[in-house]
């Protein structure tokens, strides 16, 4: 019976970086911006965060540095896509390529160095619930942070004026601008938040999930986070459900590879990528193709005054 709590715990830790990165990008897309730089922001968080943790000998500091790294890359994206109204798809790609390169450079001196695990936070009583107790209530602090993020993002988007304005800007930046709402400022804030989340997710990968840095370690998780936002169709709960589903798939894939099931490991490694496509196909078949995206998603905005 030791196995199930262990599997549940690993599913949650596998899903956590996806949830965090996807939540950040969700806020960005609700504001009408398509930031394909998530993979680049994530790996910068992983790399710079890891480097910072080694230099300062503190994984917690490393996580914060990872957040800052993600925000810095997001700032670069914002400078071009918001400040100069460049094509958002190409700009996001450029940021990803830049991020991948920089991260490799920064991380090269830190390859092979292990980090000690960060402490777990146990909630008394609740953690003793059989089967699910340990998975849900004895986790590292970032997992709890991710839960707070889920609740926080939901609340702010639906219940506050700030969230209302952000959704309005995303729905129609023309109307928002005509009403005097600060479109570019709102989008900048959203993009920076997205970068913070992606950076944290990346740092989590290198500092907590694997506790090593290796080049290219995000392995496309940034793209999967983007797909999760599409899958969410504007609803946070679907985003969360999709993230944990993917976490489960990744864990299942690992176990299958270890268990020598007979399927070549490369095909098992393909699973997350094929599942991403499959999830989007299912979404379309369920009649929710294209629903939920912000009205002005991806369109550059140039104010006329």
């Amino acid at each position, binding site marked *: 019976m030791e196995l199930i709590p262990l599997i549940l715990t690993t599913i949650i830790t596998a899903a956590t970086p996806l949830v965090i990165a996807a939540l950040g990008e969700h806020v960005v897309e609700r504001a009408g911006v398509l930031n394909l730089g998530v993979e680049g922001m994530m790996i910068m968080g992983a790399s710079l965060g890891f480097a910072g943790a080694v230099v300062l000998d503190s994984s917690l500091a490393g996580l914060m540095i990872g957040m800052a790294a993600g925000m810095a890359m997001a700032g670069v994206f914002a400078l071009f896509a918001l400040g*100069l109204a*460049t094509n958002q798809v190409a700009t996001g790609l450029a940021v990803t*390529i*830049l991020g991948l390169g920089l991260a*490799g450079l920064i991380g090269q001196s830190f390859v092979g160095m292990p980090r000690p695990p960060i402490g777990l936070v146990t909630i008394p009583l609740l953690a003793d619930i059989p089967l699910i107790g340990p998975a849900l209530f004895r986790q590292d602090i970032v997992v709890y942070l991710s839960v707070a993020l889920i609740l926080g993002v939901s609340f702010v988007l639906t219940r506050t004026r700030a969230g209302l304005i952000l959704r309005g800007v995303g729905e129609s930046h023309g109307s928002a601008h005509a009403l005097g709402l600060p479109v570019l400022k709102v989008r900048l804030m959203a993009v920076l938040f997205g970068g913070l989340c992606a950076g944290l997710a990346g740092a989590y990968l290198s500092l907590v999930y694997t506790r090593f840095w290796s080049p290219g370690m995000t392995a496309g998780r940034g793209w999967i986070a983007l*797909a999760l936002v599409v899958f969410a169709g504007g609803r946070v709960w679907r985003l969360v459900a999709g993230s944990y589903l993917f976490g489960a798939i990744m864990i299942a894939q690992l176990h299958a590879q270890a268990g020598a099931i007979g399927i070549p490991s490369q095909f098992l490694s393909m699973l997350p990528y094929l599942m991403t*496509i499959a999830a989007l196909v299912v979404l379309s078949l369920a009649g929710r193709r294209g629903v939920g995206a912000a009205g002005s998603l991806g369109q550059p905005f140039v*104010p006329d005054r």
Partner: protein
Amino acid sequence: MGLMLVPRPHVSRLRGVLTPLAAFAVALAIAAVVLTAMGKSLVVAFQVYIAEPLTSAWGVQEVILKAVPLTLIAIGLIFAIRANRWNIGAEGQYVMGGLFGGAVAIATHGMGGFWVLPLMLIAGVAGGILYGLVPALLRNRFGISEILSSLMLVYVAELLLDYLVRGPWRDPRAFNFPKSVNFDAAATLQPFIEGGKLHWGVALAVLAVLAAVILLGRSLFGFAVAATGEAPRAANFAGFNEKLLTLQVFAISGGLAGLAGIVEVSANIGQLQPSISQGYGFTAIIVAFLGRLTPVGALLSAVVLSMLLIGSETAQIMLKLPFDMTRAFMGLLLLCVLAGEAMTRYRLVRRA
């Protein structure tokens, strides 16, 4: 901010040509600053990246050869991106081209015959087309973003190749190295001149450029591509079938990427192995943008970026600069190109 963007009424041709040059210069300047901060010698950098590749016979040939796959893929990308179909996964189609063509080479190993090579090339193109049609069909039928699907398929293609060269296609006499049999002479793209290095892939690249110039500039199909990218409703009004056009541009882009794959595998690598690309599919995106999405521009940009890639191989030894540095520079370059593009469309003015 005290600045705002004001649209320019029209773009002069001169500005259109100078802008990518300016963007490249800015990116170089930034890179020079970074290199100096890292304590690297700018003189050596100049030698490695610019002087060597351009002045030695060996260097020039290498630059032209590396420009071949970049050109082929970029030409295909131009069709797709102009039609607003973002084939980010051209890398995957490149791999599949190499894989399909390589399969023919492996299957015909030892047979010889003039028909082997053309069959390989056709198989490579076919592989690229088929793989490129997948994101196109997913988009047409399910409305799935081609960016996500083509990108996911890159990982799938690479994993498939990895499986094949480590498993069923592994050369049994290769001491457990993950590689296929070496292609024999009939399966290798030969140089123009005995002893030289330039092979027929160069001719294919030039042909692709010429065909693209004619198609994009003068044909109804090229007009349909431009219309679809600029205003889909107008393209629909003209009667251009949007879904058919999606399939067509992905077939072109995938086919050319696949061709690049088999050309590289056949001419330069000579076998199938887990890694048959240096990220040409992604570098080609930068080539296409640096060339302002024009065929001739792409050709020139391919040469420039090829110099960069050649230089970076030497730089790893001479300057201890890992490939990641080049990758970061590519991202920076694309950003500068995009900024330049924005500056052709807008002016920055002080907010009144």
